[in-house]
């Protein structure tokens, strides 16, 4: 067992940084707790009163508690800790498992733990009476545990393991209702799209490891700081490859197509996936390797920003045309992830992560609110909703809080984080991206007001009698709504910078521009765009929301079909990638089946039949049968003769017996006398 402790003084907190202690040595428990819970649920879950849900919640409560202590220490004193345990050695190459605790990972621990805890509690109510509650909570625990493995990884190999486990868990959960073919297809799509992107991550990791000679992330980043020429030669390539991997998990163009389809899973899955566990992985990856992008691969960093900016622009429009409320939120997530990625690309490390932090709370809130509605209405479509404002007051008010937070209305969370991103664009001189960001904010306001108006205002269009969800579901909504109000006030330009100091507290210093005050251009344009979007949404959708049909009035020819068909990207992938790859494979398999396998099988059959005929005619019939028949005929014939000796007359037998006895006497006398 090797124990590697790595501690360097960061630029922010020179003194008093915690680098050791029992709390940090045992932090591995935080990572494995959900995985242990998963196994316990698999083996014992069915016998428990809540079918395993209580174990999952307990594990997440433990994670949250531990992460909160770590986060408190990281914020107040700063933590720089790394520990690796050797798992296997192959020659000189060792595979290690361990955990890194610094500002970035402690932030992610708290995020995953807290959002996980809230969503798990909510799922206790939402999944009650579901077909596979135990399976669901086992996969759910795996989902959270895999994410913790990922964010705690001190080396790229462990990161990839967590990365793939997240993918597996998401596959299981998206295809949770696997009785329906569409859900299975959605799971397959998510898995395959991610897998294609994962190739980028794996190759990027290998490129980095070959150049540096280690899979350890901190060693790689130390080489960045040390300006190693070997690494500099491949840094651009590796950075682009890592971006491809991150774009897959974080649903950035062109890999964003899996995320809306992933809505096939139960709503708590969507909430967790969109807030904490899955889509944040790509952002985390880019953030973790931020020094590489910033100091060695400026062009790759520009690519990061371009991908993010493009994604945030195109995804917002798609959200306007969706009828499925979860798909509206899904495209909204794609767009918000675009903000985060673009911010990282523009150099706003803590701005991007800050949006990740705030977005987690209000996007989980929105999904859980949507789930609360879906749970009652039994439909995802907003055309079946409407007028739920009075029937579900808690859901309504929390959903409105989440929407306003997403739109970026002060004093809610999204306002501060989105403003910080827009300010970063402005300060770094990317005015065009700033324009796209403001446009995105406008679109966000438009589709969120549409979602709120069509769901909660007007008249009820569905069937049945909607009512407020149970307490176990509304309580998480209230908690998250409180989070959406208060979570962002730890980072206000020029006032407090707790969050920035927290996440930049890493082994390698993060260089970034810190705004001393609000950027009035970014703030004003973002706020105006948000308010404008709300007003436009109100004008378009409010009056119409009362009428039964034609609730969407923005049916502009050409543009509407384009958006409704998702820019024909799915069709493009289907015709351009899936068919050209799948069909030749299918044909080749069919050909080999017809020509080679059939031929081999037929030959084997023919040879066997021929051998069988020879054996049957020559050996079996003439050899073995003859021998058996001969023996039985001989026995029969002999018996036929000999049986006449059995006359049935006792005196004949006695006579023979006497003659025999006399003969024996004679023999006895002759021999012995």
């Amino acid at each position, binding site marked *: 067992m090797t124990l590697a402790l790595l501690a360097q003084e960061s630029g922010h907190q020179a003194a008093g940084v915690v680098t050791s202690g029992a709390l940090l040595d045992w932090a591995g428990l935080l990572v494995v707790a959900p995985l242990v819970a998963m196994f316990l649920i698999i083996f014992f879950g069915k016998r428990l009163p809540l079918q395993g849900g209580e174990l999952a919640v307990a594990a997440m409560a433990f994670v949250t508690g531990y992460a909160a202590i770590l986060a408190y220490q990281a914020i107040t004193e700063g933590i720089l800790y790394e520990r690796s345990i050797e798992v296997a050695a192959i020659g000189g190459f060792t595979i290690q498992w361990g955990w890194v605790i610094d500002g970035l990972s402690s932030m992610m621990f708290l995020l995953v733990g807290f959002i996980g805890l809230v969503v798990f509690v909510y799922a206790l109510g939402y999944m009650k009476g579901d077909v596979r509650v135990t399976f669901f909570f086992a996969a759910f625990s795996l989902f959270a545990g895999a994410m913790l493995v990922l964010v705690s990884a001190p080396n790229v190999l462990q990161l990839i393991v967590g990365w793939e486990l997240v993918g597996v868990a998401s596959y299981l959960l998206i295809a949770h209702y696997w009785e329906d073919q569409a859900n299975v297809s959605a799971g397959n799509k998510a898995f395959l799209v991610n897998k294609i992107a994962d190739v980028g991550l794996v190759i990027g990791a290998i490129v980095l490891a070959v150049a540096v000679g280690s899979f350890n992330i901190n060693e790689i980043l130390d080489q960045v700081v040390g300006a190693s020429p070997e690494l500099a030669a491949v840094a651009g390539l590796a950075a682009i490859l890592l971006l491809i991997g991150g774009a897959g998990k974080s649903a950035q163009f062109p890999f964003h197509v899996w995320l809306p389809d992933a809505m096939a899973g139960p709503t708590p899955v969507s909430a967790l996936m969109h807030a904490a566990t899955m889509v944040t992985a790509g952002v985390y990856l880019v953030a973790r390797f931020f020094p590489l992008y910033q100091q060695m691969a400026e062009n790759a960093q520009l690519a990061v920003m371009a991908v993010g900016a493009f994604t945030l622009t195109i995804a917002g429009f798609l959200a306007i045309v969706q009828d499925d409320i979860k798909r509206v939120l899904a495209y909204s997530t794609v767009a918000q992830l675009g903000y985060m990625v673009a911010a990282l690309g523009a150099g706003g490390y803590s701005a991007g992560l800050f949006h990740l932090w705030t977005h987690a709370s209000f996007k989980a809130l929105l999904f859980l609110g949507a789930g609360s509605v879906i749970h009652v209405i039994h439909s995802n479509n907003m055309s079946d909703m409407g007028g739920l404002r009075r029937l579900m007051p808690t859901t309504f008010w929390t959903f409105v809080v989440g929407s306003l937070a997403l739109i970026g209305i002060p004093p809610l969370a999204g306002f501060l984080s989105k403003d910080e991103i827009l300010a970063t664009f402005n300060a770094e001189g990317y005015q065009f991206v700033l324009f796209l960001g403001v446009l995105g904010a406008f679109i966000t306001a438009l589709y969120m007001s549409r979602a709120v108006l069509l769901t909660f205002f007007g008249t009820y269009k569905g069937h049945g009698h909607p009512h407020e969800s149970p307490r176990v579901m509304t309580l998480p909504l209230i908690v998250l709504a409180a989070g959406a109000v208060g979570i962002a006030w730890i980072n206000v330009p020029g006032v407090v910078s707790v969050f920035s100091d927290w996440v930049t507290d890493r082994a390698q210093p993060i260089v970034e521009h810190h705004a001393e005050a609000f950027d009035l251009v970014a703030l004003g344009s973002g706020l105006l765009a948000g308010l404008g979007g709300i007003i436009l949404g109100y004008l378009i959708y409010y009056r119409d929301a009362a009428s039964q049909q034609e609730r969407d009035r923005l049916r502009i020819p050409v543009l509407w079909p384009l958006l409704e068909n998702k820019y024909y990207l799915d069709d493009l992938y289907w015709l351009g990638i899936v068919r050209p790859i799948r069909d030749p494979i299918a044909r080749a398999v069919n050909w080999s089946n017809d020509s080679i396998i059939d031929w081999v099988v037929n030959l084997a059959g023919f040879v066997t039949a021929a051998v069988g005929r020879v054996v049957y005619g020559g050996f079996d019939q003439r050899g073995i049968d003859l021998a058996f028949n001969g023996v039985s005929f001989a026995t029969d014939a002999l018996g036929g003769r000999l049986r006449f000796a*059995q*006359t049935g007359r006792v005196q004949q037998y006695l006579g023979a017996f006497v003659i025999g006895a006399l003969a024996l006497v004679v023999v006895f006398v002759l021999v012995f006398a």
Partner: protein
Amino acid sequence: MIVTQFLVLAAALFALGVFGLLARRNAVMVLLAVELMLNAVNLNLVAFEAVIRDVLASGQVFAIFVITVAAAEVGVGLSIVLMIFRNRTSANVDELDLMKW
């Protein structure tokens, strides 16, 4: 004491028994012949007991055993013969060939 006369008598009795066993047709007479053979053996046992008592101490005991077994045998045998006679109205052993091929 000369044992020869007893042995000759016993052999004659035994031979008579064998003849009766093989030659008689009436089942009762066959059983009687068997008794004759058993008593010939008893005679031998008693005679040798009288002659070589020091060596063979239990000749009379064996004779008693044989008489007992003979009594049992006659009891069983006569009841079988009785049942056969009742079923077939005949005690002729030549007709009892149920066990033939």
